[in-house]
């Protein structure tokens, strides 16, 4: 195969993958999000203000807070 043909093939493959990714993200996933179970899960996450995609605790919307009963037991900076 000539180098020009090979280069054309490369860009064709890239275009194919880009189209496939776009189809999944723009068509399939929004439809999946409308399924009852998934929609319930999404609503719960939104109502609780949970960023489920967080990799580390600093990526969460807010720094995790200790339950109040523990707050009373363990003082981090005693006065």
């Amino acid at each position: 195969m000539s180098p020009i043909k090979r280069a054309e093939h490369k860009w064709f493959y890239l275009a194919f993958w880009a189209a496939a990714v776009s189809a999944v993200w723009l068509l399939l996933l929004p439809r999946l999000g409308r399924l009852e179970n998934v929609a319930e899960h999404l609503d719960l996450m939104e109502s609780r203000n949970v960023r489920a995609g967080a990799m580390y605790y600093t990526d969460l919307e807010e720094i995790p807070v200790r339950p109040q009963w523990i707050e009373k037991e363990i003082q981090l900076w005693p006065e």
Partner: protein
Amino acid sequence: MSLTPSSSSDTATILDSTDGSKKRGWHEDYAAMLVGGLLVFLSLCITWSGRPSEDAGNRKAFPKGWPNELSKSIEKPQAWMANPIEGLNNAKSKKDVTLPILLAMGWVVLVGMAGSLLMGRAFWWFLPGGLFLAALTCIAYFLSAQKVIESYNLEYPLWALMVGLIIGNTVGEMPWLKPALVGEYFIKTGLVLFGAEVLFSRLLELGLPGLLTAWVVTPIVLISTYLFGVYVLRIPSRALCMTISADMSVCGVSAAIATAGACKAKKEELSLAIGLSLFFTVIMMVTMPPIIRWLELDSVVGGAWIGGTIDATGAVVAAGESLGKEAGEVAATVKMIQNSMIGLIAFGVAVYWAGWVEKSEKKVEISLGYEVWRRFPKFIIGFFLVSVLCSFIFTLGPEESLWVDGSNKGFIGPLRGWLFCVGFICMGIQTNFRQLAPMLISGRPMTMYVLGQILNLVLTLTVASLTFGWLFKK
């Protein structure tokens, strides 16, 4: 001293890919330490300069820490459902985040150019490739911000790898892109920044029960799974065993990245570990809450069980919250304590690798101290020092803790995310699909992960029941 680019030399002679001339520069570990250290210092200074005049130590008034002016210069795409343009607006604050996203891309290019300069490369050649990589990073972030994807904790490294793999396995490494493919430098700089977020002081937040859950179970699972992979399953790569063990026992992707750096795992090994972790995280996040309800476990014990076993922080909070508010709080705090172990584990793994694993593989008869130092991944020192410094500041009092949190939430955390993301794009571009296939086909890494996770589930439930259900019952 060696003049070839190796992780062991203090400086490296790098063959400039554009003009063929040899230039003398720093090794990427030192460049990452300097750039990362300066960025942490800058963020702390700017956060300090904007400290509130009233209620500076009140966490309720400042739940995200002190305000940080640098936060205006960095943001990532927001959650969207059907139209990616929605991701340019923050639904809660109604703020347009287009400019901060563009500025964040600018930070990526700036950090890359600084690294190229320090590493002795012609940094202006970095610019075209750097801009392209920043754009790809933005695309990967948009893919991860789709609501269904985000709510099931399929984190950005997976999509960054996918975007990189697509580019690398179709059009390949274009000549103008090569000078910008400094993925290891980006990840190491991200890890030095990450040190600021790994606060040892947080280990004390849940007192003895938290310490027992994190400090007893995690090391036992980590070491047993690693030994099982090496000696029973006979997985040829020890680095792969260690990376999988760390991501499964500590906290998923972030632990995998830190440990892979410490044990010098290959790109494809880290990719595999991350893929496994995210796959099982989704399964556990969906299945654990119904199992806990079926077992009729106390919600606090259930929360601690979730926090100690599910890999990723976001998935822990999501699963915990579906059991109730208190379970969510306990789960998130237990995970936060486990998160804080990454620093010690990465440092310990780096020492073990440099002193024992690499030594036994190569049988070099030189002084042990020198050998350990020569092989030690130096950026881990930067990571550890930044972690110790920020942990120390954090312990000084409530005001200082909000200072560190403000610096991390406002700037360091988001920038670390962008640097990891661009690092994974580079890794994807330089990885061949065929290199991943043999590891996937053998099935041994997956067996190791599953058996390790079963041990983790049993031990964590036992300790969580003992501590939160009996010793420290509400």
